[in-house]
């Protein structure tokens, strides 16, 4: 582990009211790599994502981004350190056009990066261009997912956090989202993907961690996880 991780999460405990959801969660995300956070429904994937993004502040633990601990800071501060969070249910602004949704996400990266613009988004997401004046609420699930990813990219994040990008989408749309993520990976993006669907992650992720009942139970490469039938049967409903 010579290379310093961009995101280092350690000893994360998260509570909703009195019930503890995450127990001592830790993970590391390295530059240019894609990490899959896998687990069943309710295992704590979304909560981990929300805790990193600051939407569900942890009670204890460290969330280090490029060496600075941001645990407990408000979401907009964390976003400005370079975390680009795409939430589980996409949360498109339904009464804003596609273009307005993208504009709300627009900002410079923590180091002044401004690689992403409307023009570049429409190059990478050609399906969105003809929809630019359509209301967000009138898009299909797949279109909303693409818009949610594009909107976050408009903020020039250093790390992309994708919460269940394949959820509720038709297989052909899932394949298209997967393709898109491979394109992004080829450009050197650093990504954390929370998924139930391991197969979706196979061609997209490099490494995998498995979470169960709020604790990390397994770490490996994604290929290693694929080969480990026992872990898959035990922790991932297939």
């Amino acid at each position: 582990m010579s290379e310093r991780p961009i995101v280092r999460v350690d000893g994360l405990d998260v509570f909703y009211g009195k019930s503890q959801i995450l127990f001592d969660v830790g993970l590391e995300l390295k530059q240019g790599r894609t990490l899959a956070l896998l687990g069943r429904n309710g295992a704590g994937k979304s909560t981990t994502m929300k805790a990193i993004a600051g939407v569900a502040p942890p009670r204890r633990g460290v969330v280090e981004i490029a060496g600075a601990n941001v645990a407990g800071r408000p979401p907009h501060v964390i976003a400005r350190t370079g975390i680009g969070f795409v939430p589980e249910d996409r949360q498109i602004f339904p009464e804003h056009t596609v273009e307005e949704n993208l504009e709300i996400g627009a900002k410079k990266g923590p180091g002044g990066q401004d690689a992403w613009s409307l023009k570049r988004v429409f190059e990478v997401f050609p399906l969105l261009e003809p929809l630019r004046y359509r209301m967000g609420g009138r898009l299909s699930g797949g279109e909303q997912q693409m818009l949610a990813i594009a909107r976050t990219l408009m903020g020039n994040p250093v790390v992309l956090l994708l919460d269940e990008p394949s959820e509720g989408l038709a297989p052909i749309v899932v394949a298209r989202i997967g393709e898109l993520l491979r394109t992004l990976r080829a450009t050197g993006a650093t990504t954390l993907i929370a998924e139930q669907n391991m197969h979706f992650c196979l061609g997209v992720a490099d490494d995998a961690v498995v979470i169960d009942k709020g604790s990390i139970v397994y770490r490996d490469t994604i290929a290693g996880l694929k080969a480990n039938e026992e872990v898959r049967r035990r922790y991932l409903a297939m």
Partner: protein
Amino acid sequence: MNLVALTECLTSASCLVTQTTSGLIIGMLLFLVAAGLTLIFGVLKVVNFTHGSFYMLGAYLALTVNGLTNSYFLAVLAAAIGVALVALVFERFFMSKVYGSNVLMQLLVCYAFILIMDDAVKIIWGPEFKSMGMAAAFQKPPLFIAGGIVPVFYLFLIIVTLIISVVLWLIITRTRFGTVVRAAAVNPSMVSALGINTGLVFSGVFMLGGMLAGLAGGLAAPVRSLTAGMGFSILIESFIVTVIGGMGSIAGALLGSIMIGLVRSFGSIGFPLFVEGLMFLLMAIILILKPSGLLGKEG
């Protein structure tokens, strides 16, 4: 009740012009106050009961600045800016502390502020009725339109409030600030996750709302008698307007304001003792037909 007078007025062009003008003025000034109220409610989900006090403060600031500079323009400007600053301080140090707490707590904070403002006005400007007087620029013979008498100042007020409404609409629909404000009204936590400081957006909205109320107070000052407590009746009317138009809808506030303005001006001829009652009656009928208000969202 004087239905004969009302019928006579409705069939006479001159009376129609006069009453419609005065109704529009009441309505448009009310709109400036109600627009801020509904905007603040739509985005911050709090009912700003101090909004009437902002209007009052605007009128008194205009009175003082007009006295010092003899410029109605500077007076209105001072009212807008002064009240915007007061609104900012009130939001940052008081109101923002009770976001998300129960309505009773918010009501208490606002009510305290209303009492303090009313007393401050009595201490600074005195308890008696004040009048600002008409600026020299408007001391001209009135216009006659279709036989109806329309003072120049009335025409000026209608035009200025219309321009302000258009500018407000452009800000909300065409600027990045407006886009973010509309998004924050629907889903503040997503706006925040995209790197936008929603606390600042909330302050901005509160300031904008306060500025509109101050502007309304300043603009209205020459044709209103100023008194501590003058904020209360406009607050009630603004509520009626927001409820009629739909809580959170600016277009609804415009529609509701003009309706209330016309009901007031024509109602004062047909039902001189029941004008207030007419407004509540109108509100009740609209709520029965459409409980979310004319342009409000269902549910």
